[in-house]
């Protein structure tokens, strides 16, 4: 008997499907995601049962894209610039999002990204399709086109200047678009072959690895490290303990995703941690919704409160950088306190961002060792007799994390090799992989929305305990970061910082 937490990518049961449709839909969903009666969980699943499956494809595709981007930039210089992008900012007329000041119109660059992901991703989706039936390839292709269209609409919605101003990223609109469709008319059966949120997330996370440059750490200085690396793990662990033992929230993965989301760097940390601890899609959706809602409030309120309370810009900048979830919001809130505060806030946030890899790796190991093996009663007996704990941990370990770490190490080593290496990474990431990563996350959240029933979101709220968890954790984060920022930025390193930023 399998007592593990329910599969996040459980078969689809749209509210409006009749019994016959529902049976076909569920059959199709099991075939699509590789989960079935013998399904092994949302990550590390494989139709072939080798424990790699989508993870191997995510690593292959992610590292492949990074290699191609690096090779292209090395050979052809900046010719890749502007080839991939997403719809941009607009104020009055939505179609302005497809035309910008860039030399290549944004509609072409967006189409370039969609085609690139499709060309690489559709074969991967087809290969990991459990039962390849006739016509499956074309159904996957048609589904991908529809999902990419929804992702484009999400980018356009996020690009409106007012929406953008308050930090409501494309992920929330992608999620809502999917939710609206799945909870009104139901996700059409023909789209289901391409509803592969997990593949898109893992692929995007491997690409994100190339943006986590370990070299930034040593360049950014000790004070930021002291604030980010001391406070963040403490807040993460305390919030996790509080959620599990005081609030007694039943799902530890939900608690972990909210804790990482709130203590590390918002949406990207939530995505990485959710994949590492195999959180349910509803839990990830909820954590991101909470984060974006509170970020919009904090980015306006914190600078005002600091001005009112007379907190100086050095301490205020560090405080903002360590507490507000989203990187862009940190920059905006810091700028509201002044240029120096913005620099310090963004510095602290960048150092915190580097933690994403360490946290994701630690969580994946902890989860594989504690929750996954504990709950698998069929294998635990064999594990005790054979002492194969490490083998069990490895079997349960979300392998894509290795791709994330490999991408980070490769990019860091190239960046560290000198100024040419740094320029190479900057171009490959800035012109190519980060745009593809944005598209992949957007596609992933459309898929998550298409797979989610509103009714399944209610249990994730745990009767409001999730909101309490976020508020308590964030309050503790604000207190501890403020204390540390005052000690480090306001006292220990104040003179040095004043010399650096007069």
């Amino acid at each position, binding site marked *: 008997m399998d007592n593990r937490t329910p599969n996040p990518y459980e078969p689809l049961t749209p*509210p*409006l499907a*009749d019994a016959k449709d529902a049976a076909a839909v569920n059959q199709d969903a099991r075939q699509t995601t590789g989960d079935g009666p013998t399904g092994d969980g949302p990550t590390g699943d494989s139709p072939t049962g080798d424990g790699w499956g989508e993870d191997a494809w995510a690593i292959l595709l992610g590292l492949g894209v990074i290699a191609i981007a690096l090779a292209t930039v090395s050979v052809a210089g900046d010719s890749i610039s502007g080839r991939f992008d997403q719809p941009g900012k607009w*104020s*009055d*007329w*939505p179609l302005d999002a497809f035309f910008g000041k860039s030399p290549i119109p944004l509609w072409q660059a967006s189409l370039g990204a969609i085609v690139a992901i499709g060309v690489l991703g559709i074969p991967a989706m087809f290969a990991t399709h459990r039962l390849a039936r006739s016509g499956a390839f074309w159904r996957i292709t048609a589904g991908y086109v529809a999902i990419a269209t929804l992702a484009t609409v999400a980018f356009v*919605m*996020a690009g*409106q*200047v*007012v*929406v*953008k*101003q*308050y*930090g409501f990223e*494309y992920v929330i609109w992608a999620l809502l678009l999917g939710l*609206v*469709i799945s909870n*009104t*008319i*139901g996700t059409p059966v023909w789209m289901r072959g391409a509803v592969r949120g997990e593949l898109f997330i893992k692929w995007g996370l491997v690409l*994100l690895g190339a*943006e986590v440059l370990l070299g*930034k750490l*040593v*360049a950014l*200085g*000790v*004070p930021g490290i002291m604030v980010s690396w001391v406070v963040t793990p403490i807040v993460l662990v305390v919030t996790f303990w509080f959620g599990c033992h005081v609030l007694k929230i039943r799902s530890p993965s939900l608690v972990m995703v909210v804790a990482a989301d709130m203590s590390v*760097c*918002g949406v*990207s940390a939530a995505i990485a941690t959710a994949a590492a601890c195999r959180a349910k899609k509803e839990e990830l959706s909820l954590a991101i919704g909470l984060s974006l809602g509170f970020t919009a409030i904090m*980015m306006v309120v914190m600078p005002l409160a600091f001005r009112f309370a007379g907190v100086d810009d050095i301490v205020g900048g560090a405080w903002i950088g360590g507490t507000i979830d*989203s*990187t*862009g*919001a940190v*920059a*905006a809130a810091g*700028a509201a306190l002044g240029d120096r505060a*913005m*620099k310090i806030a*963004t*510095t602290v*946030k960048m150092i915190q*961002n580097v933690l994403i890899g360490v946290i994701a790796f630690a969580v994946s190991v902890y989860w594989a060792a504690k929750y996954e093996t504990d709950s698998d009663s069929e294998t635990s007996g064999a594990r005790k007799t054979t002492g194969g704990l490490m083998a069990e941990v490895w079997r349960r370990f979300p392998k894509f994390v290795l791709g994330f770490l490999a991408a980070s190490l490769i990019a860091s080593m190239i960046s560290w090799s000198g*100024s040419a290496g*740094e*320029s190479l990474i*900057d171009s490959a*990431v*800035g012109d190519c992989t*980060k745009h593809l990563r*944005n598209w992949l996350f957007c596609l992933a959240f459309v898929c998550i929305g298409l797979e989610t029933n509103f009714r399944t979101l209610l249990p994730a709220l745990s009767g409001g305990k999730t909101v309490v968890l976020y508020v308590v954790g964030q309050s503790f984060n604000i207190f501890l970061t403020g204390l540390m920022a005052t000690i480090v930025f306001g006292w220990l390193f104040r003179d*040095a*910082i004043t*010399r*650096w930023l007069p």
Partner: protein
Amino acid sequence: MTDAVAAMTESRRGGAWRLAAILITAIAFWGWLFPWISTWPATRQRIENTERLGINPSAIYYTDIFRYPADFPTADFPKSGFHREPPPGGPKHSAGP
């Protein structure tokens, strides 16, 4: 059985109506309300400030920030003991608007 089919058809029709209502609301928000709010002086000033600083408030990750402070890679604190030369021409993402 006939009742069940009729209920299902009714439910589908209800779903289509709900979708249409949501679409119309979204079009009203993005087509009229948000563009109107963007003309408010306070909003316009806030938008202009972040544009002037090259900040994308909705950036999901630091590489999404159009501009981060020009001296980031050399942001070395004297007591840290580390120093790093800037790349030629400054950091890639440091170009202002």
